[in-house]
């Protein structure tokens, strides 16, 4: 193939591009051949491949036009993240070539494979998101009452536990106070009716003892159980929020 033939074919293949793009590309490659020198024309052509290949590269890059600078590179806490690499969309070097050389079919199907390679991944993601949305919508009529019941149950259980705890405190407190009062009353009685007095003292001491036990239990609950409960709730919340974060 001569340079003229190459350039003519290239021009033909770029026909569907805006004239500015086409002119720029043709000028570039024309200059390129010139700078390489007439002796190198064959070498250049074999390196460039075919007009079809060049045209496909130019077109696929132009279709990536939606890649503005701000979208191409995200500044994360680990430095710039090149989204083009991450998404596997713009593998410029060897791989594309291999695929290209292997199948020397018509230019159109080649360009189409390049396009589908570029857009394939997108379709998967959108249909997944769509599916999730549909499931969410369908689940709402069922989900709301279920969630309500679960919530009510949880609140009920928590309230019961709290109530029991309050009762424990109250009992311990009243035993302590009651026991003390009874003991004092018993001491007074000792001077009037000793037998009654001893009985009251004894009962008072027993009550006081039980009250002390209750107080110790209360303190145990405060220092051990509550922190564990709080940690459990925090962990649960964190897990819920983490989950939300990743699906978004």
């Amino acid at each position, binding site marked *: 193939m001569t340079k003229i033939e190459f350039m003519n074919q290239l021009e033909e293949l770029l026909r569907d591009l805006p004239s500015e793009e086409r002119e720029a590309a043709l000028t570039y490659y024309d*200059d*390129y051949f010139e*700078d390489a020198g007439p002796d190198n024309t064959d070498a250049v052509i074999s390196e460039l*491949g075919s007009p079809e290949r060049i045209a496909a590269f*130019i077109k696929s890059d132009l279709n990536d036009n939606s890649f503005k600078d701000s979208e191409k590179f995200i500044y994360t806490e680990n430095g710039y993240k090149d989204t083009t690499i991450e998404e596997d969309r713009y593998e410029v*070097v*060897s791989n594309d070539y291999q695929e290209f050389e292997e199948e020397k079919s018509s230019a159109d199907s080649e360009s189409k494979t390049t396009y589908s390679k570029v857009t394939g991944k997108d379709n998967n993601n959108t249909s997944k998101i769509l599916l999730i949305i549909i499931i969410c919508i369908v689940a709402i009529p069922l989900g709301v009452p279920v969630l309500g019941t679960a919530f009510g149950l949880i609140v009920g259980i928590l309230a019961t536990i709290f109530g029991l705890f309050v009762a424990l405190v109250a009992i311990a407190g009243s035993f302590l106070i009651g026991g003390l009062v009874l003991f004092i009353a018993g001491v007074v009685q000792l001077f009037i009716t000793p037998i009654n007095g001893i009985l009251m003292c004894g009962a008072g001491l027993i009550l006081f003892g039980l009250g002390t036990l209750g107080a110790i239990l209360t303190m145990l609950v405060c220092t051990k159980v509550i922190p564990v409960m709080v940690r459990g709730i925090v962990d649960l919340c964190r897990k819920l929020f983490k989950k939300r974060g990743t699906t978004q």
Partner: protein
Amino acid sequence: MIFNTGAALLDAIVLAVVSKDSEGTYGYKITQDVREAIDVSESTLYPVLRRLQKDNCLEVYDMEYGGRNRRYYKVTAKGMVQLKLYYEEWKSYSKKINKMFEGVE
């Protein structure tokens, strides 16, 4: 070369190569220089140059040479900023990778 050059690194190398000439340089020479560093096909570079031009990192002008017009590429101020950014990223990146290879013989 076994490591793939991503789009960003390719942009960075091209900018670096063009920036070496304060007056700018032309396509064929850019390609030869880039290929000293990485084994990339000649047909890869035009889209890169075109994109850098559209992003205003490179500007073009035509100058006569040997009786014909030759198109030159030159780094813009924005291009220099971008190049510096790339260089900082590269230093940080290559440092981390070098660290990984420490001790391998």
